[in-house]
């Protein structure tokens, strides 16, 4: 297996792109990544694109082909496929791209992710997102996606004494970090009090525990490590690319305060990279809801089970803390264009590892972990990236 490097990154601003379509966003992110890699689009051997809901939401499937076409690649007949794993689609696409390069089948692979969420009314988007859960046995019975997160949060509070205030630290830190990220959607600073007093979405989670509806796209260019330096002075090595799955519904899991798919993904990723949690300088965690990132923090071994809330309360997840979480602003504040998220996390990580993150730079960051999940971590994609 060959070592794989990221040689180019690109992303759109995350937010509400009223004037731009899904294909516009995807093409922008892809071409930016190609330009950043100092190559031409026609040099791309294959495209893997992450997207969750275009088929449901805007009635457009066959997505990778349409994007390759509008990126100007139809004449080159480049292979392009969409990869879907709900909110983990971006991470899944990266995993596929990694395999393609590592195996030696392709040399230059573009991995993208895109979601256009503002073309339909909010309740329709909520319904489309709920399809990440079990339609027959959860959604039909009234479960919304936040309601599943809320039940995990309630149980975590019950089992470990996690407080409402501790949970609120995750969005507070996310907004603080996003205020320093020009590509982020929500750049206002918030307080714990504001989180607690926001409208309740699914008790105990409020609006400010939940990631927003976002349009956006992100892309990276992968190449074999051995040729990476031909294109860039700052290649970033993908030292682990791991995917796991779990019971799709939280009701089927032995516990809802830990996710075995998280634990296994972390364990395998550390083994693949030959490192441990203590060697990670910062993480981009999947904080679709505050509780999802809190549980991941514990499951990935950064703190003991049940201690995530305390860790956050002590300020250890902020920039300058023991383990900065989501310097980008995370899904919560940078935004959550579902299919793009997993790739966007990697874009941020590369920016950090290149030392180009400006005000939100994690000092001396050499190695980081990204954690992207589908549903309630029913599928998990963990990547460890490092400077070489």
């Amino acid at each position, binding site marked *: 297996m060959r070592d794989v490097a990221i040689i180019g990154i690109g992303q759109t601003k995350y937010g509400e792109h009223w004037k731009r379509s899904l294909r516009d966003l995807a093409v922008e992110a892809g071409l930016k990544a190609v330009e950043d890699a100092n190559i031409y689009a026609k040099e791309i051997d294959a495209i893997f694109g992450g997207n969750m809901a275009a088929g449901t939401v805007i009635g457009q499937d066959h997505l990778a082909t349409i994007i390759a076409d509008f990126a100007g690649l139809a004449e080159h007949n480049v292979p392009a496929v969409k990869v879907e794993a709900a909110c983990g689609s971006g991470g899944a696409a990266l995993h596929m791209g990694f395999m393609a390069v590592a195996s030696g089948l392709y040399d230059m692979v573009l991995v993208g992710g895109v979601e256009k969420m503002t073309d339909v009314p909010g309740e329709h988007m909520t319904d489309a997102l*709920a399809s990440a859960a079990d339609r027959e*046995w959860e*959604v039909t019975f*009234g479960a919304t996606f936040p309601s599943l997160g809320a039940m*995990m949060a309630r149980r975590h509070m019950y089992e470990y004494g996690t407080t409402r205030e501790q949970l609120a630290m995750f969005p507070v830190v996310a907004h603080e970090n996003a205020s320093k990220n020009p590509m982020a959607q929500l750049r206002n600073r918030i307080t714990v009090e504001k989180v607690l007093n926001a409208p309740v979405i*699914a008790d105990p989670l409020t609006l400010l525990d939940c990631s927003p509806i976002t349009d956006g796209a992100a892309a990276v260019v992968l190449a074999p490590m051995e040729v990476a330096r031909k294109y860039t002075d700052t290649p970033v090595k993908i030292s682990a690319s791991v995917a796991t799955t779990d019971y799709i*519904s939280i009701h089927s899991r032995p516990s809802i305060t830990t996710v075995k798919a998280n634990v296994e993904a972390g364990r395998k990723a550390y083994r693949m990279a030959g490192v441990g949690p203590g060697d990670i300088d910062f993480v981009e965690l999947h904080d679709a809801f505050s509780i999802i990132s809190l549980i991941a923090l514990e499951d990935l071994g950064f703190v003991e089970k049940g201690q995530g809330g305390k860790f956050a309360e002590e300020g250890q997840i902020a920039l300058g803390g023991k383990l900065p979480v989501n310097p980008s602003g995370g899904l919560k504040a940078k935004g959550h264009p579902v299919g793009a998220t997993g790739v966007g996390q990697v874009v941020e990580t590369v920016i950090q590892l290149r030392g180009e993150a400006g005000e939100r730079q994690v000092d001396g960051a050499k190695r980081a972990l990204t954690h992207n999940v589908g549903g309630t971590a029913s599928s998990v994609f963990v990547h460890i990236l490092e400077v070489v």
Partner: protein
Amino acid sequence: MVVPRVWRERVARYRMVGKKCPACGKVYFPPRDVCPTCHRESYGKMEDVELSGRGKVYSYTVVYQNVLGYELQKPYIMAIVEMEEGPRVTGQIVDCRPEDVEIGMPVRAVFRRLGEEGKDGVIVYGYKFVPDL
């Protein structure tokens, strides 16, 4: 066309008929064709088992932003209920004030409307839960 999809699940949704693994005896709901523990030993051999409908609240939430079709019910309580026979099930708790629900509360299944496929479409029925007094 949603009719076959609704029709197919009627027995499980109306009467909470789940599956029991003949090898290890574990009961599953919703029904599944393969026991995650016994795999090949169970495939094609899973037995129907009707749950009693009684259980306890394992976790819950009060939903203020509903899925489509639940407009008239919000705010409503969603819960994961641990059934007497072992499996946990996601369902609504009705006829209960949000302030009265708590983890560990005994509940029992009742038969309610889950939704409808528009005003001229089929009505979907199934289980919900009420406090078991």
